[in-house]
């Protein structure tokens, strides 16, 4: 029955090319679910330019029948079919970009009925990118061609690609009951190996990249901590909340741009950087002067007091902005990604953050090693009393160093707001990891912090696919404890006589 109906509709369509588009809408609206599916399949096999508008409407879930717009109830199967039909129609578009997208969509979802149409399009296609994408889509379909030679060619073509989908298709062919021809099966095996190799490269690079990305985030989170902990000996449990404040500053800047300068909203993160830096640095300096200053030399008490500060900051943000996450949108230049391999996309925001993290490290290094402030900070770190005798205003230096550490956390917060949720608990998730970075890297060593951050980031991402994120984290904690057995001072330690 379905075939009969199908043929009937097909015949109608072929016979009535004129005025058919209005009828298409009526037909579709009148049909039940399975008939709608058949309609869509036939449209996909025989696209005509005039029907694009109708299918576009369908994709939005709307149909206009006799000038009246109705809302459709679609199930997932129909939605998929609509996408396929739309892609099929878009192959007829003038814009090669649209055609390319369409061809890529068809690689995943083309139906055998579309074979003939795709063949025609391939012959007529002029753009080379679209051609290769299209030939792949075709190859996917040809895998079920009755002619073994055609199948063989298709299998070879699939081997050339590094598409994740090609792998599943080829894996299917390995079973004798699906693919009867032995030579095609052998070819499928070689092609599969080829595809797997390409995919593996992409996977490994992908893991390395996400490791680097996580490392850069850890670095931004831990760098400020390395300064306050390493140079001042202060355990700042509220450091995570400085990240959170930085992210909320970004949110506020974004709101201001939306209100007062919607045209320049693309560039709000650039303004958010100094704003976040100064806001968090100011908060940090106020805290240092009012609370932390009284606790120098009592690290455990500092830890508890700063934990108290963090509780207050979290609750304050909850009261001011609500307990829900706030929406921080990526500007256009940070969304999307670099398409390196079929299964490897490097998101722009993560790329930018890696570069940004390194830039912050370089700036911090310059600040600590090439400026008067840095000299003062290092002097106070090494011998507070002597520095005071030499006229270094130790109180001011403490305040500025703490402000610097907090400010860097604020910068980290801007970066975090571009890749994750911004909520009052944002900082809590980072504080333990940041401390582990500082502990592992060795106290008071910027280089150690950099190595430890990237090391931990990459180790995390390598372990994650093998044993899962949670077990990976636990394993890494165990490894750090074992590592500290060997090198109690961390990766990079200042050696010297222990002073009692």
């Amino acid at each position, binding site marked *: 029955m379905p075939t009969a109906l199908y043929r009937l509709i097909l015949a109608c369509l072929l016979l009535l090319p004129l005025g058919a588009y209005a009828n298409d809408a009526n037909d579709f609206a009148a049909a039940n679910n399975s008939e709608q599916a058949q309609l869509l399949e036939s449209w996909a096999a025989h696209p005509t330019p005039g029907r694009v508008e109708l299918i576009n409407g369908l994709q939005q879930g709307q149909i206009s029948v006799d000038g009246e717009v109705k809302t459709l109830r679609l199930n997932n199967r129909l939605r998929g079919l609509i996408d396929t039909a739309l892609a099929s129609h878009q192959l007829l578009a003038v814009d090669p970009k649209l055609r390319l997208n369409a061809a890529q969509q068809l690689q995943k979802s083309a139906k055998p009925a579309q074979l003939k149409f795709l063949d025609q399009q391939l012959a007529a296609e002029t753009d080379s990118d679209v051609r290769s994408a299209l030939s792949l889509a075709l190859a996917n379909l040809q895998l079920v061609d009755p002619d073994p030679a055609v199948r063989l060619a298709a299998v070879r073509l699939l081997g050339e690609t590094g598409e994740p989908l090609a792998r599943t298709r080829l894996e299917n062919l390995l079973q004798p009951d699906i693919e009867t021809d032995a030579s095609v099966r052998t070819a499928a095996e070689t092609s599969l190996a080829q595809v797997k190799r390409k995919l593996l490269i992409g996977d490994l690079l992908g893991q390395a990249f996400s490791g680097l990305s996580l490392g850069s985030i850890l670095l931004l989170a831990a760098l400020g901590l390395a300064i306050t902990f390493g140079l001042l000996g202060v*355990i700042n449990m509220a450091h995570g909340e400085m990240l959170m404040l930085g992210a909320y500053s970004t949110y506020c800047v974004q709101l201001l741009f939306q209100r007062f300068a919607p045209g320049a909203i693309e560039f709000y993160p650039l303004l958010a950087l100094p704003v976040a830096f100064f806001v968090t640095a100011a908060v940090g300096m106020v805290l240092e002067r009012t*609370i932390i200053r*009284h*606790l120098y*030399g*009592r*690290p*455990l*008490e*500092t*830890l*508890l*007091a700063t*934990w*108290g*500060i*963090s*509780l*207050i900051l*979290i*609750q*304050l943000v909850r*009261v001011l902005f609500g307990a829900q996450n706030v929406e921080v949108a990526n500007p256009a230049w940070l969304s999307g990604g670099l398409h390196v391999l079929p299964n490897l996309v490097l998101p722009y925001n993560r790329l930018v953050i890696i570069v940004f993290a390194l830039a912050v490290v370089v700036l911090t290094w310059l600040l600590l090693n090439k400026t008067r402030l840095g000299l003062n900070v290092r002097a106070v770190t090494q011998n507070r009393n002597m520095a005071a005798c030499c006229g270094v205003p130790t109180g001011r230096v403490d305040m500025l160093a703490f402000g610097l550490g907090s400010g860097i956390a604020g910068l980290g917060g801007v970066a975090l707001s571009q890749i994750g949720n911004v909520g009052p608990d944002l900082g809590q998730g980072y504080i*333990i990891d940041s*401390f*582990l970075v500082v*502990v592992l890297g060795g106290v008071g060593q910027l280089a150690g912090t950099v190595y430890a951050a990237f090391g931990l980031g990459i180790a995390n991402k390598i372990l994650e696919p093998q044993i899962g994120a*949670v*077990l990976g*984290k*636990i394993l890494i*904690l165990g490894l750090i*404890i*074992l590592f*500290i*057995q060997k090198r*109690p001072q961390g990766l990079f330690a200042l050696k010297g006589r222990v002073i*009692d």
Partner: protein
Amino acid sequence: MNQPLMLTATQKAGPKVTAWVGGLVLLVLLAMPLLSLLPADNSFQVSAYTLTLVGKILCYAIVALALDLVWGYAGLLSLGHGLFFALGGYAMGMYLMRQASGDELPAFMTFLSWTELPWYWVGTEHFWWAMCLVVLAPGLLALVFGFFAFRSRIKGVYFSIMTQALTFAGMLLFFRNETGFGGNNGFTNFRSILGFGITEPGTRAVLFFATVMLLVISLFLGWRLARSKFGRVLTALRDAENRLMFCGYDPRGFKLFVWVLSAVLCGLAGALYVPQVGIINPGEMSPTNSIEAAVWVALGGRGTLIGPLLGAGVVNGMKSWFTVAFPEYWLFFLGALFIIVTLYLPKGVIGLLKKKDEQ
């Protein structure tokens, strides 16, 4: 900072008064379970809510005491005691779950369509084995962690951070459904313990009584420790570990002993907490809970035995009042408490009382 901390509050802060107050408190605590058995219309009747609340706070007080042993005496601030507490609680919870489900698998396992018990659940239907687990699980974990941590001389804030990371890792692990402890719902819907209904007034009264006894025993243990040479070695270790080593003491053994003891006490407290409160979930392992225990000890006065109990009572009493009256402001209050205690009350309330006494 280097000023001497007193050995016990009872020794110096007006021994008579302290003894009287302590005796009175103990008397009230012992009377409470009995009063709870009175009929509901009696004006002396203690409601189930009050009994549970006080029982809960008593469990916390044991945790505070255990934390004080390692922090106040040995100078090791643990931010991971919630883990030991929860492990003890989970061990007890396993038994209670088995009791509730009878011969079947516990409900959450059938929900995950598991067909058999994981190996670590074997034997948990026996009360005695569950009790062994209550001691063994936190004890062994503390032993292994402590062995490595003390061997590499991790101390001070490094130790604190490591313990915090440990409890955080534990929380992540227990949040997973595959771990086999009910995921983020944990264990709840208990029915009976040793054949007695868990919500029956009699059971509640006995559990409460057991908690008071555990507290008294812990207190006695702490008192004996603090007065022994062992206690003096711990104090010495806190103030000058190097000197102690050159005196010929191996600090690792001393630290490990008190660390494991403290963990086991926490586990026992957790085991009594679970049947009284009726639920255990991974939230108990969150770093926040453990660090809150530190403020109980700090507020009461570390290095004393009464201080932590006082601190746990005051803070938790405030908490249950605040979270009903002004839930928005509880965190502000708690945060301020952390700051005020560290800035102005380095020796806690007990220190304050003692100072007044001396003047």
